[in-house]
């Protein structure tokens, strides 16, 4: 049966208006619906991070004297260490909120920013790449409206995450607070959530503004570099005066004094963040409206050398296809490693000289088995612990690229050649692992050069960085096993869940004083202290076993199932 058609001119206007409204609402709702899982996961991870940090501090420091002692240590620390461990300008460190704000606020904001970058770089450019955008803009909705609706949906999702952070901050004040000043007021909790939201959106808006020009991957890469670079510049501005000017032109610098969790809100500093975010989002909307759909600026001189493309066979091709992203991760981790390696020696000496025993105990609680008073211990805390998380995330992105062969239908063409299923799985998995090796080598060079620049031993951290590669290869092994047995689409999500669970286990178990075996479930807790050359054989064997076993399991599974799309 046909729908009733509007007759009069007024009817037609109403018809078009209602059609337009329903389509616009559909774009907003669809975008919000697509991101609901990510909102829950990101919000959940941030809440757990806040709880772990608050739990560790609140339970370890229950007397005013111990808090003052710890605060004195932190304020007397070399500036570089403050940058390594948290906010370079901490406030009210004797309160629970002040400590959490110092140690974790930047990380909470960073994770939220990373999600915002991923989501906003994909919202238009990703859709255009898949060809979906053309379908949407062929409806009676303007491009400008589509872009605005997509941004609105993302802001809604980010507001939910901010609300989760605010609620968690208010709750941890109640749950773990033991001294006056530990409670987080509702106003300060909301201020914290707002700060997380606006900082994350500022980073995401860079990606959104650039995506119509340089495409999804380019926009995400530049926005990540701006965000990480900004955080590092601000974090180390007190240690390296030449960074001061740079740090102060980032939103991290603008909002440096806005620390609501520490009871020091400074709402006015958020105004420039709102302004720059609005300008960048508006730029993205206008560029989406004015530029050709899917047309991006290509940089012809930035061609990958043919020899690195890996056209000689499936193993080289798999490695060549993953190499750009692996090297990007390696460079990011390497730069971070260089900074940490450069500072570690002096910082460790300073800690050993100045820190009272009671204060070091909190680090032992947060990082069991690590001696913060040594260069190696500091590298273990400041680089390996964080580096393992980042290496795990890098491995997930590489697994995602590996799985694209099957998910995008390329595997059908490949298997139409002399390439067997088993050979494809083995060579492509090994190629992906080779990309992990490339990433690890670049990272290791960064940290070794940093250590050498500071006059320390460069060889041990160079070799110690292999722990990151081992862990990443294990993650790839898990992905290959899942991809081979179940299907390509499951590989990256399962790997992401495994990396997330490992991170949370290593974070929550010591922080919340959970039984020892809980923390031992994390693979990363079995790698020893590779930065001082102390390796745990169990972890090394487990990583290699997961990598090799994953390939074997994946190959077996691949032989028996249908190739999907």
């Amino acid at each position, binding site marked *: 049966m046909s729908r009733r058609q509007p007759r009069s001119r007024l009817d037609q206007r109403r018809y078009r208006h209602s059609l337009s409204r329903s389509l616009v609402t559909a774009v907003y709702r669809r975008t919000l619906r697509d991101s609901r899982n990510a909102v829950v996961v990101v919000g959940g991870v941030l809440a757990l991070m806040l709880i772990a940090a608050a739990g560790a501090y609140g339970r370890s420091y229950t007397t005013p004297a111990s808090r003052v002692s710890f605060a004195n240590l932190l304020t007397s620390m070399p500036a570089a260490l403050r940058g390594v461990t948290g906010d370079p300008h901490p406030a009210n460190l004797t309160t629970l909120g002040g400590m959490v704000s110092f140690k974790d606020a930047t990380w909470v904001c960073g994770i939220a920013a990373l999600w915002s970058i991923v989501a906003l770089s994909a919202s238009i450019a990703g859709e255009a790449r898949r060809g979906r955008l053309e379908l949407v803009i062929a409806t009676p909705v303007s491009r400008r409206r589509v872009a605005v609706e997509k941004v609105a949906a993302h802001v809604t999702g980010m507001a939910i995450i901010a609300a989760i952070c605010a609620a968690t901050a208010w709750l941890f004040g109640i749950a773990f607070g033991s001294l006056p000043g530990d409670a987080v007021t509702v106003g300060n909790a909301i201020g914290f959530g707002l700060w997380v939201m606006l900082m994350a959106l500022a980073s995401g808006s860079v990606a959104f503004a650039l995506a119509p020009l340089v495409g999804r991957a380019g926009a995400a890469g530049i926005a990540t570099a701006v965000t990480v670079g900004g955080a590092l510049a601000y974090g180390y501005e007190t240690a390296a005066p030449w960074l001061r000017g740079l740090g102060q032109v980032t939103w991290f610098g603008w909002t440096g004094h806005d620390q609501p969790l520490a009871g020091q809100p400074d709402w006015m500093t958020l105004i420039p963040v709102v302004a720059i975010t609005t300008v960048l989002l508006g730029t993205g909307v206008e560029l989406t409206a004015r530029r050709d759909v899917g047309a991006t600026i290509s940089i012809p001189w930035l061609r990958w050398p043919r020899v690195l493309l890996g056209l000689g*066979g499936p193993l080289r091709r798999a490695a060549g296809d993953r190499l750009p992203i692996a090297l990007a991760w390696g460079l990011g981790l390497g730069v971070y490693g260089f900074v940490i390696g450069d500072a570690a020696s002096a910082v460790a000496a300073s800690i050993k000289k100045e820190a009272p025993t009671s204060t070091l105990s909190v680090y032992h609680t947060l990082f069991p088995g690590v001696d913060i008073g040594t260069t190696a211990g500091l590298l273990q805390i400041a680089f390996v612990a964080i580096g393992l998380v980042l290496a795990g995330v890098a491995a997930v992105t590489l697994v995602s690229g590996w799985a694209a062969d099957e998910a995008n239908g390329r595997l059908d*063409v490949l298997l139409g*050649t002399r390439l067997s299923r088993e050979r494809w799985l083995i060579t492509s998995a090994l190629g992906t692992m080779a990309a992990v090796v490339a990433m690890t080598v670049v990272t290791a060079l960064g940290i070794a050069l940093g250590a050498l620049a500071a006059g320390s031993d460069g060889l041990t951290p160079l070799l110690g960085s292999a722990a990151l590669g081992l862990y990443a290869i294990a993650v790839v092994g898990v992905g290959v096993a899942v991809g081979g047995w179940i299907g390509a689409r499951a590989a990256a999500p399962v790997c992401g869940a495994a990396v997330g669970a490992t991170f949370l286990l290593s974070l929550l178990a010591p922080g919340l004083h959970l039984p020892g075996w809980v923390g031992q479930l994390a693979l990363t807790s079995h790698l020893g202290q590779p930065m001082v050359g102390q390796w745990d054989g169990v972890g090394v064997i487990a990583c290699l076993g997961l990598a090799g076993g994953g390939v074997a399991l994946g190959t077996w599974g691949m032989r028996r199932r249908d190739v999907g799309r």
Partner: protein
Amino acid sequence: MAPVIQTLGLTKHYGGHRGIEQVEFEVAAGEVFGFLGPNGAGKTTTIRILLDTVRATAGTARIFGLDSRSDSVAIHRRVGYLPGEFSLYDRLTGRETVDYFSKLHGGVDRAYQAQLAERLDVDLSRRYRDYSRGNKQKVALITALQHRPDLLVLDEPSSGLDPLGQQTFLALLREAREDGRTVFLSSHVLDEVRRSCDRVGIIREGRLETVAPVDQLRDMAHHEVELRFAGAVTAAEFESLPGVSIVTATDHELHLTVTGEMDPVVRAAARHHLIDFTSREPSLEEFFLAHYRAGTAAADDRG
């Protein structure tokens, strides 16, 4: 001569969903075989079983006398395959793409590769992701054809090609047949099927309904017959004739739908003063449309 492709009781179920049921056919060496059917009929499933990307629930498929599952690599050495939906490497240029697949296939004649690119009019220096849909299809066609395979398996090969590209593609098919190579292609472009295929198989709702030479399909079709008489004629006289299904009558005219031989109608008409006799042969398109519609109607009746 042994058939190049032979399927026996080929069946595939995707969980509770129907894929194909008891599909049996043979394709002879040097033959161009068209595989037709509406969307979701099971064409791609059949092709993917032949290429061993999906596994049959029951039945077997043999290609060059080898089992499509256990000897898949040996089969693929002699096959050129173009899937219906595919993706290649976005960051590679067209040339890098065809070079890489030439390594995977082996035995590629570079001059022939260049000739294919020239005839299909595709600039191989551009990045794959920058190609239009039609040019992506052309690059994939080169990867399937460049090693001169004994068997070409092509799923919707001319999809996205412009008319010139389609002409070139048909010429390439003719050359493959002249070289004695075998082609198995699924298509919705009936003109392409009419001009290139020796035989056609029609699959509907997972079952192979008809396999016949293209010319014979027309004979199997209904003929629309129009008879004009000098005087009045009753419809009842013609309704009972064999092969006659629908009769509409006016005073002096009869419109009949006739299947099979025309002789009984001609004899019955000859008993009257016949002024005009018109029999219209349906086009291949009309045949397929009627065939598809008949299936849909039967399915509706069952539903």
